[in-house]
C-alpha cells in the first residue's frame, strides 16, 4: 500500500491558561491518516479542539508534541522556504464566507493570493488563465473575476473561497465548517461541488463540522472528537450503523430529525455542562456526562480499542455497551 497523503502521529497542542498553572489540552494525542483522494470527517461540538486540529494540519500553528507528515515530509521540521512550497499541496476553506474574503479586493486578486508566496507560480496572462480555470471549476464565470465580494451571495462567496483553495492545485483541502453559515438550499449546492471536485480532481479532504449529517455526505471515514481526543473513529457507514461510543450515540440521538416523533412532555434534564470536569487528565474525558460511567472511568484513561477492523473506540467498555 502507498504511504498516506497525510499522517498525524501523537499530535497534541496544549495551551497554558494565563495566570494559572492550568493547561488546556485543545488537541491531546491524535493519530490518523488521510489517503490520497479520500475524506476524513471530524465531528465535534464547540470546544472539542477541531479548529485547533485544522490549524495544526495547515501548519498555521505548531504542535506541543507529535508531528504532521504530508506527502512524506514532516511539516514542522522544514525550513520556511520548503514549507512555503509544500503549502501548494494543502489549502483551507473557512466557515465564514463574509469574514474570510477581503472586501476591498477583486475576486481575481483574492483567488490568486496563495500564488503570491510561491516564486514558481504562473504570472501575468498565465495566472489570469489559471484564475478563470478555477472560477469555472467552482461554477462561477470568468467575468466574475473583476467583481468585489459584496456583489455575491453567501453561497457564491463560499465558491470563491473554494476557488482560492484550488488555485495552487492542492491534493488536500482542509474545510472547517465550510457550509455552516449557508442556508439549507445553498448548503446542498456547495456540498455537491465539493463532491464533484473530489471525484474530478482526486482531492482529499479533512472535513470538519459540528453536524453529523453534513459530515456523512462527504466523509469516507469519520472521527468523533471530544475534548481534544478522538473517542471513536471508523468507516462512515459503520459509525452510523453501529455507533459504539456513548458520546457518538448521544450526538446521533440529539440531532433533530424530521422523521422523529414530537418531543414528549417528559420531565427535562438539567443542564449537563457544569464545571468540575477539568480533572479528567487521568480519566475518560466523557465520564462526567456519560450515562454508563463507573468508577473505572474516572480512575484511568481508556485506550483506543478496535471493535471491528478499522473501527476504534476509546472507552473502557468498548463493545460492551
Amino acid at each position, binding site marked *: 500500500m502507498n504511504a498516506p497523503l497525510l499522517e498525524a502521529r501523537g499530535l497534541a497542542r496544549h495551551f497554558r491558561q494565563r495566570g494559572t498553572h492550568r493547561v488546556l489540552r485543545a488537541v491531546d494525542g491524535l493519530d490518523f491518516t488521510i489517503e490520497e483522494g479520500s475524506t476524513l470527517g471530524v465531528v465535534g*461540538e*464547540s470546544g472539542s479542539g477541531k479548529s485547533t486540529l485544522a490549524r495544526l494540519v495547515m501548519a498555521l500553528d505548531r504542535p506541543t508534541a507529535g508531528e504532521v507528515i504530508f506527502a512524506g515530509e514532516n511539516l514542522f521540521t522544514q525550513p520556511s522556504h520548503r514549507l512555503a512550497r509544500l503549502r501548494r499541496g494543502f489549502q483551507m476553506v473557512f466557515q465564514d464566507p463574509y469574514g474570510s474574503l477581503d472586501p476591498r479586493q477583486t475576486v481575481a486578486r483574492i483567488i490568486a493570493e496563495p500564488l503570491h508566496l510561491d516564486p514558481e507560480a504562473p504570472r501575468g496572462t498565465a495566472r489570469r488563465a489559471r484564475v478563470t480555470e478555477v472560477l469555472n471549476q467552482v461554477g462561477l464565470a470568468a467575468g466574475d473575476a473583476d467583481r468585489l465580494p459584496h456583489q455575491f*451571495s*453567501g*453561497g*457564491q462567496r463560499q465558491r470563491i473561497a473554494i476557488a482560492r483553495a484550488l488555485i495552487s492545485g492542492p491534493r488536500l483541502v482542509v474545510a472547517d465548517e465550510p457550509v455552516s453559515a449557508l*442556508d*439549507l*438550499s*445553498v*448548503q*446542498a*449546492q456547495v*456540498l*455537491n461541488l465539493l*463532491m464533484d471536485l*473530489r*471525484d474530478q480532481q482526486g482531492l482529499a479532504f479533512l472535513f470538519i463540522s*459540528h*453536524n*453529523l*449529517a*453534513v459530515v*456523512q*455526505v462527504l466523509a*469516507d471515514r469519520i472521527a468523533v472528537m471530544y475534548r481534544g481526543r478522538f473517542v471513536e473513529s471508523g468507516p*462512515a*457507514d459503520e459509525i*452510523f*450503523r453501529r455507533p459504539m461510543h456513548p458520546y457518538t450515540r*448521544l*450526538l*446521533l*440521538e*440529539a*440531532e*433533530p*430529525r*424530521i*422523521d*422523529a*416523533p*414530537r*418531543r*414528549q*412532555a*417528559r*420531565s*427535562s*434534564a*438539567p*443542564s*449537563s*455542562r*457544569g464545571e468540575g470536569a477539568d480533572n479528567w487528565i487521568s480519566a475518560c474525558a466523557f465520564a462526567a456526562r456519560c450515562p454508563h460511567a463507573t468508577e473505572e472511568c474516572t480512575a484511568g484513561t481508556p485506550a483506543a480499542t478496535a471493535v471491528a477492523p478499522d473501527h476504534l473506540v476509546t472507552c473502557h467498555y468498548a463493545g460492551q455497551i
Partner: protein
Amino acid sequence: MKLELEKLAVSLRGEPPLPLIADMSFRLEEGGTLGIVGESGSGKSLLALAIIGLLPGGMQAKGRILLDGRDLLGLPESELCHVRGARIGMIFQEPMTALNPAMRIGDQIAEGLLWHRKLGGAAARAEALRLLERVRMPEAARRFAFYPHELSGGQRQRVGIAIALAPGPQLLIADEPTTALDVTVQSEILDLLAELVAESAMSLILISHDLGIIAGMAERTLVMYAGTRFEEGPTETVLRHPLNPYTRGLLQAMPQRGLPGTDERDRRARRLASIPGSVPQAGHLAPGCRFADRCAMAIPACRPVEPAWRELAPRHAVRCIRAEALL
C-alpha cells in the same frame, strides 16, 4: 390566549416604501404550537418583532395583529409595553447579547417581576429563584448571583427563558433559541421548552431554519419564503406531503444520515438534491411567484402574477399554482 394575524405587511418607509413582509395571516389557538421555518431573508425574525411591536424605526406594519381579539397595531405605546412584557415573552437566538453582561442573572429575572407583577424586592427575588429552578439550572441558588459570562451557552439560554417566563406570559415567541448551541445542549433546551408549553396553557411560536427542530416541537408549521407565507398546515402533513415545491426542495436538500451505504462507488456517486440560486433580497423580487426563478416546476403561468393563498386540504394551505401536481 389566541393570536390572529390578518394580512400583516411590513415595509421600510421611503419613496416608494420597500415591502419586507407581505400577506401574512395565521391563527394560533390557546395552547397551540406553531413552527415558522424559513431561510435567512425569509422575514421570520422581522415577523416576530412585528408581533411584539419592536420593529426597528423606519419600518411600518399594516394589517391586524389580534391578541384575544384586540388589535395590537392600534395600541398606544404605553399599553403595548404592558402587553409585550406581561402577555408575550420572547427568547432570542444569542443569549449572550440578549442578557445584560453587567447584571447578576437573578436580578435580571427579578426585574420583570418588579415591573410587570408589581412584586416587592424580596418576593421578586424569591420568585426569580423559583424560576431559575424551573428552567432546571443546576445549583440555582448559587448561580443566582452569577454574571452571564460565568455561565455556559446552554445555561445562559435557560436564563433567557426564565426572564421570558417571569411575567407569566400566555404566548412565548422563541426566535432560533438553539441555533448558537451545541446539538446535545440544543436537545436539552428543546426538551425544556416542550415541557414548559405542555404544563401550562402557554402558546408557542418557534422560529427556526431547521426542519428537524420544527418537526419535534410544533403541531403546525408555517413555511416562509422571501417575505411571505408559502405553505401552512399540520406539521406531519407539511413535512411528509408538502404541497409547495419550495418546501419539498428544502426537505430534499437536507443531508439524510444513515442512508444504507451499498458499496463505495454508489455512495460516492450520491449527490444531494439542491435548489439552484439563492433567496432573493427584498426589493429584488421578480413579479409573479417569488420562487419561480429557482423552481423546477415553474411554468409560464407562474410569472405574471403572484399566486394566491389557497386552502387545498382542511387547514392545509399553500401559495403555488402547481400544488395539485404534488397532491
